[in-house]
């Protein structure tokens, strides 16, 4: 199991050809208090860079961009009722999707934890 990070402040914990996807604590802190999450549905496929959801905070709406190509296999439905868990545990319970990776080569373009820490300064 390896965790990767994107410049759009998402994390992917990858096991084989599947991954759990969420936003980083840094992203959640920047967004402020989160009040709504709009998610894709199971079976939706997407390409790297696609808009795969929206997170609304008290301040503004922010898109979630896909860090890799893939297909949604599971949606964390608890976020609909409790969007605020994204502030408390964005790298734990408040994961956003489980996905099937369709181009694992793209993982090489992502950062590891040290790289991400350096990226956010």
């Amino acid at each position: 199991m390896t965790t990767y990070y994107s410049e759009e402040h998402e994390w992917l914990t990858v096991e084989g050809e599947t991954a759990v996807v969420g936003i980083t604590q840094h992203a959640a802190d920047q967004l402020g208090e989160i009040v709504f999450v709009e998610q894709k549905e199971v079976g939706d496929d997407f390409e790297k860079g696609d808009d795969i959801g929206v997170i609304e905070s008290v301040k503004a709406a922010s898109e979630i961009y896909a860090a890799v190509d893939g297909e949604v296999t599971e949606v964390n439905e608890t976020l609909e009722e409790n969007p605020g868990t994204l502030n408390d545990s964005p790298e734990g319970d408040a994961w956003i999707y489980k996905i099937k990776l369709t181009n694992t080569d793209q993982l090489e373009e992502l950062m590891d934890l040290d790289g991400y820490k350096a990226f956010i300064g």
Partner: protein
Amino acid sequence: MTDAPKRTPLYDLHVELGGKMVDFAGWEMPVQYPMGIMGEHNHTRTKAGLFDVSHMGQVILRGEGAAEKLETLVPSAMTTLKEGKARYTFFTNPDGGIMDDLIVANAGDYLFLVVNASMRHQDIPHMADNLDGIEVTEIFDRALVAVQGPAAENVVGDLCPAARDMTFMQTMVADINGVECRISRLGYTGEDGFEISIPEDKAIEICRAFLAHEDCEPVGLGARDSLRLESGLCLYGNDIDNSTSPVEASLTWAMQKRRREEGGFPGADRIQRDLAEGAAKKLVGIRPTGRAPARAGVEVQDLDGNTIGSITSGGFGPTVGAPVAMGYVATKHSEPGQKINLIIRGKAQPAEIAALPFVAQNYKR
């Protein structure tokens, strides 16, 4: 705007308190403090919040017949405004649109005005050019702060006992910690509270004295916006502008009977016509049924998919616990309870026209 943003006399205090500074209308202002927008909003509704509103324009009008002359620019009654009282009004343009909204206080031998930060550059020359024989002085050496919330009376009253006896829209000059301030019992959060004009070199000292009260916390522009939105108060540039008439904006209450009948202000023709015939569109409250906030610019449709208006302000209402919005819809769709759709990111989301305010106003009458 290419100029560096300006700083208010309270800038150093904002930074010390952990304020997250942003550029707002050319001013470097705190959007929030470590407590966060939601916490600051709720604190203001339950206790008291301290807001820096020094970016707003403070103006003095001095001269014979100032109130009478000001009536040529605004549709509210100024000559009947008693000494020690303040009134909400707006400058209208020749088309009957709103150029800016403002507060006018009768300070005895002069009028004291507070105008929007983003409109100072327009309002000052507008008055200087049109108020013949009146001295228009913009004040640059005073901070303006608001203390708002149910505990505001204690926060201000502990330092200035006379403030406790004031009622909504009263204004006076009084000492706070030995400093002469102008205190007005009003604000823009829907809560009881005060706006206080303070000499700039004493502003931080007096704000520290307010913050020393256990019920008073600093509140940024983020919560100021959600508080005014829940209270159904218009934001200039969003909910009202040069194209909207006061009748469309449901601000008829601010135009006293004599002024409505006599006219004598810019755009009186259109405003009187809107009053007589009804306006084609109206500013209403909107409650999305789901959880998705609907923000400014979102299209409003009837259930048949016809465009009937758009949202001008919207977001999450912490006290309501759900998204809230304001916007204009065709008058025939403006009855509270009417079902509508909001087009959010291309999808129709159900919503309902709602009565304003969303949260009852809590003024000391």
